[in-house]
């Protein structure tokens, strides 16, 4: 995955670059908005990680200009401004996701990977049947089966599983689940999401040898066929 990080705080940029490289990604850096804009237009990146407050050209303008130039590389905004209206402003300017500082690196990584994957696979990813191992989810008939056995899921559990299977093999964090399955962007003080996931796990993994829904410590969850 080829990632451009546009961030004027050099320490933060170096940290993100190093951590992303350890995950096996190719990372370029820009320290101001204009450099970032030039690189983003030329380089063929899978995802752009853009700070909102940048010298020379701020993040919002940078992304707006890119979109005007028909550059549709997914953008993940980083910002110390995290209120509801700030996030909406970022998304309106053409951003695809918004992460508030300070953030956990695992959160940044999970979101960047989901964005990049969306780009590489494109709309083709919108299949009607998702499959992970012997687990199948049919989006049209809303049926879920494991090894041919029909599983009885509540509507919300279905949406939870649907989201995780769309991003099969990728780590999804608790806040990503809250945002995408419940459409809330706040930080739940308690482990509400964990309880939902463990319930779902009880339904899809209980009684099977190979657990598909796995917990990634310190990051979130991933659904994958463990054999792979």
């Amino acid at each position, binding site marked *: 995955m080829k990632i451009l990080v546009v961030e004027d705080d050099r320490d933060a940029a170096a940290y993100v670059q190093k951590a992303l490289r350890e995950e096996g990604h190719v990372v370029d850096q820009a320290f101001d908005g204009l450099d970032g804009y030039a690189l983003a237009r030329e380089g063929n990146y899978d995802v752009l990680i853009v700070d909102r407050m940048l010298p020379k050209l701020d993040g919002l303008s940078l992304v707006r200009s890119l979109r005007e130039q028909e550059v549709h590389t997914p953008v993940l905004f980083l910002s110390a401004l995290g209120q*509801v*209206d700030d996030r909406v402003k970022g998304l309106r300017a053409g951003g695809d996701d918004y992460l508030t500082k300070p953030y956990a690196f695992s959160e940044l990584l999970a979101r960047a990977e989901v964005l990049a994957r969306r780009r590489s696979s494109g709309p083709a990813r919108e299949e009607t049947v998702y499959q992970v191992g012997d687990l199948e989810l049919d989006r049209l008939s809303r049926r879920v089966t494991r090894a041919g056995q029909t599983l009885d899921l509540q509507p*919300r559990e279905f949406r939870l599983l649907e989201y995780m299977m769309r991003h099969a093999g990728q780590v999804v964090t608790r806040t990503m689940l809250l945002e995408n399955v*419940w459409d809330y962007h*706040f*930080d*739940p*003080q308690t482990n509400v999401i964990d*309880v939902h996931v463990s319930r779902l796990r009880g339904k899809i993994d209980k009684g099977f040898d190979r657990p598909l829904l796995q917990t990634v410590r310190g990051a979130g969850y991933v659904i994958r066929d463990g054999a792979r």
Partner: protein
Amino acid sequence: MTALGKLVRTTAFRLTLAYALVFAVISAGVLGYVAWNGRHLVEQGMRETVDAEVNGLIDQFRAGGIRRLVATVEQRTRRPGSSLYLVTTFVGEALAGNVARLPTSVLTSAGEDPDTPYERLDDPEDVTHHAYVRVFLLPGGFRLVVGRDLGELNSLGEAVKRAFLLALAMLTAFGLVGGFFVARRVLARIDSMTESANAIMAGELTTRLPLQGSNDELDRLAASLNAMLDRIGDLLSGLKEVSDNIAHDLKTPLTRLRNGAEEALRVAKDPQQYRQALERTIEESDKLISVFNALLMIARAEGGRVAENMAQFDAAEIARSVVELYEPLAEEAGVSLSVEAPGSLKAHGNRELAGQALANLVDNALKYARSAEPSPSGAVAAVQVSARANGDGTTEVSVADHGPGIPEADRERVLERFVRLEGSRTRPGFGLGLSLANAVMRLHGGSLKLEDNHPGLRATLSFPPPFAGAAT
């Protein structure tokens, strides 16, 4: 700046000056018109009198010739008055009359002269008088001159002029003085407002502008400014509260964080122990971050910054989705969580913030639903969430539990930041949930009500009717 310069610079002085000037110009116009009109009337009367006399004398002449005319003129000149008469031969020799000398040019032709210098016979000294005269040529070369002395008229004019100037001067003076005092009275109040404002700026933040109770424009202005100062004062004390809170309540977890790291350095022997210490550090700092976020959000909501993203949302949907979100957690805690939110209930506001406020209430209710002593019957503790529209257009979402509740005396206090009641200190949390919900509701122009649920607590989010008052 000299005292005079200072005076000239005041609004009172300038206003007064402008008014006095306008006043003077108008009075001058009126008085001038009256004087001119009066003089015109007097002159016209004089002309008519002279005409009548001339006609009378010509009649005498026609009836009795020059002798009779001379006799009549001599008779008339004996009467005291300001009239003047003269009858001359064609060479200018005086036959009768009371005129001693008259410019010869006047006599040569018939007609009238509005202002002719002459001397009188009955005047002992050779004083030149002025008169309005009419000259008539009579058959036989005789000339008849009849006139009226202008002395009276002129002195009347002088008197009017003097009165006029005096009146003008007095009007201007009274206008200036009166206007100055009236303006001074008004501006003195403005000055006292300025003084109060300066005092406030100098740091006496509790000072307020003086009110007179007359409810005039200045009073209303002062009242508005006072209300503004109160609002600013509230915001300031809110800000101060936040900084105090940060000092008191964030230092503790920071200290814990630091102590943990220090201890790890001191005690830890192998990578495993270091790892654990670091993980604890991250966990603690995450907690701190979420406290910071909550504090910032409260401060922003309390600052009255209306989020741009106010729109119509469905309060019933929020109630259902939040309950759905917390349902598994409730089940795990052994609490029955139910919702009663039929159909859709339109409210105006921000779905995110409203959802978060409700989530905080549900979270609290679940925490306290199982009161200190579990019911002996083993009955399941219950939390009920309900949404409804009221007749007055408000939309309410309430969360009711049967936990320990909040004593009436504390219901105001728990809305403050970091306030945690005795008995709840052992439970997780920072005492921000209710403050946040309260701030969110204030931002919406609504309210958070805490009531007794007999037993337990009923917390109600009350949204105002759409478009009635999104901002407070």
